């Protein structure tokens, strides 16, 4: 029984990182109504920036964390400028934006491949102190505690920005109606840029956390996360903030539990099966209708 709880705990931590990744993904969908398939590449670049800040610059981890968030945020804005804005200006269909974001993702990955010489990098030993605690018979690492704490802080920050600042109000206004927002004096393209920045910063944070947790940073690391992020936001409801959170946690737990008690080969089948099931019975996602006020998607 302790083993089950241990796995649930581990799944919760992993799920938190999925949630972090998925939040930025769902935010862009909620506001711009497009899927940013370069989100995984932005995440990967965040991990690299965090890694190089530690290894090449010798700076402490928290600096690396902030650097990764800023850099990934800016790269994400670049993705908007290159992949999305020109198409929007021409009024191209949303499908075109999906294709062009795949293109930008490929470019970002090629650049990372060149910069990393196709190697897998690790954070140097001792970057994160290895400490374990025993709580009620469960083994909890300091790393897990810090991961959960960072996810909680970042989610609180995101919610604070969205629901308690003027910028957040403007983001939600643009998500609901671009024309009305513009008539109110809101620069829709600036708000899009801001949305991409926030989304990228969250991906950058997720990149560093996952790079440390799995002690591996490489140019392809974004791809599996993009796919998982996709499942997560479909589970939770496209554009839903609470949905991304809950979807991430569910995904992490189901994955961890099925790897621990069934087989790792089956875990993907179970997760994608779950996605198909949701698409069949509740295409709007688990949290589609429940959290209308937290949902940032266009009505």
């Amino acid at each position, binding site marked *: 029984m302790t083993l089950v709880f241990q796995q649930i705990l581990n799944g919760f931590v992993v799920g938190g990182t999925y949630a972090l990744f998925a939040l930025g993904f769902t935010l862009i969908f909620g506001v711009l109504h497009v899927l940013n398939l370069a989100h995984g590449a932005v995440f990967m670049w965040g991990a690299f920036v965090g890694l190089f800040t530690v290894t090449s610059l010798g700076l402490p981890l928290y600096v690396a964390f902030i650097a990764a968030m800023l850099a990934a945020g800016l790269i994400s804005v670049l993705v908007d400028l290159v992949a999305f804005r020109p198409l929007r200006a021409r009024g191209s269909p949303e499908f075109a934006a999906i294709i062009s974001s795949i293109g930008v993702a490929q470019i970002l990955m090629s650049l990372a491949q060149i910069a990393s010489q196709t190697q897998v990098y690790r954070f140097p030993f001792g970057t994160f102190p290895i400490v374990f605690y025993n709580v009620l018979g469960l083994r909890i690492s300091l790393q897990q505690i810090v991961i959960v704490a960072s996810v909680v802080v970042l989610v609180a920050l995101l919610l604070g920005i969205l629901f308690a600042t003027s910028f957040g*109000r403007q983001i*939600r206004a643009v998500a609901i109606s671009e024309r009305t927002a513009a008539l*109110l*004096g809101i620069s829709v393209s600036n708000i899009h840029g801001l949305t991409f920045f926030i989304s990228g910063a969250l991906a950058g944070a997720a990149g560093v956390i996952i790079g440390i947790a799995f002690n591996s940073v490489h140019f392809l690391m974004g791809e599996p996360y993009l796919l998982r992020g996709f499942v997560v936001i479909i589970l939770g409801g496209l554009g839903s903030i609470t949905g991304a959170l809950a979807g991430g946690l569910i995904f992490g737990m189901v994955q961890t539990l099925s790897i621990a008690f069934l087989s790792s080969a089956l875990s993907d089948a179970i997760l994608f099966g779950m996605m198909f099931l949701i698409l069949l019975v509740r295409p709007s996602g688990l949290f589609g209708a429940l959290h209308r006020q937290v949902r940032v998607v266009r009505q």
Partner: protein
Amino acid sequence: MLEVTDLATAYDGITALRGVTLRVPTGSMVAIVGPNGAGKSTLLNTISGVLRPHAGTVRFDGADVTRLPAHKVARLGLLQVPEGRQILGPLSVEENLLLGRLARGARAADGTADDLDAVFSLFPILAERRRQEGGSLSGGQQQMLAIGRALMGRPRLLMLDEPSLGLSPIMARQVFDALATLKARGQTILLVEQNARRALASTDFAYVLEQGRIVQEGPSAALASDPRIISHYLPETDLSTS
């Protein structure tokens, strides 16, 4: 204050405005009346920068604003209350109002609380409902919210697109009373209305728009007694609702 000259706008090649010329002097209240599909909303949206004209100019306070993007037009104080009110439904009444303040831009950065109070004293129901979702209000209350939201931006020219559309006669009267109050305070207003009787009764000057063209213009009182206007736009049945 507003000078529109030979303005022409098309949707994918289909012309909706064919050379519209009109002016709104500072402090006046001007009406544009005309049947459904005449191009009234197209005209306001072209002035607002939501639509691009293919010919003509829009000048606001002497400055050419013809091809300015909508948010910049709004920030100059040329504010539109769009057709159908366009309340941001999931946002609270207060959030809708606070968003309206953005249009004020650099013109006057201070005094949010005062402006909220001013809107609440014009529309007390909004103060009672300030924490509710905008989308939960009745049609008339949403219209008040839309007008209040525009007022938060301290409009130099307030343009309203069919503010009485879909409202009960009582609600429509309340909205028109509010407009009269604003006019008395010196607010410059451009009012688009299908309900010609009410529009002509509350404005100084009016233009009649038909099929994208101004077909008649003159002081509102004069138009209201013009037999041609009466037969086209002021049918008997209108009496019961006004």
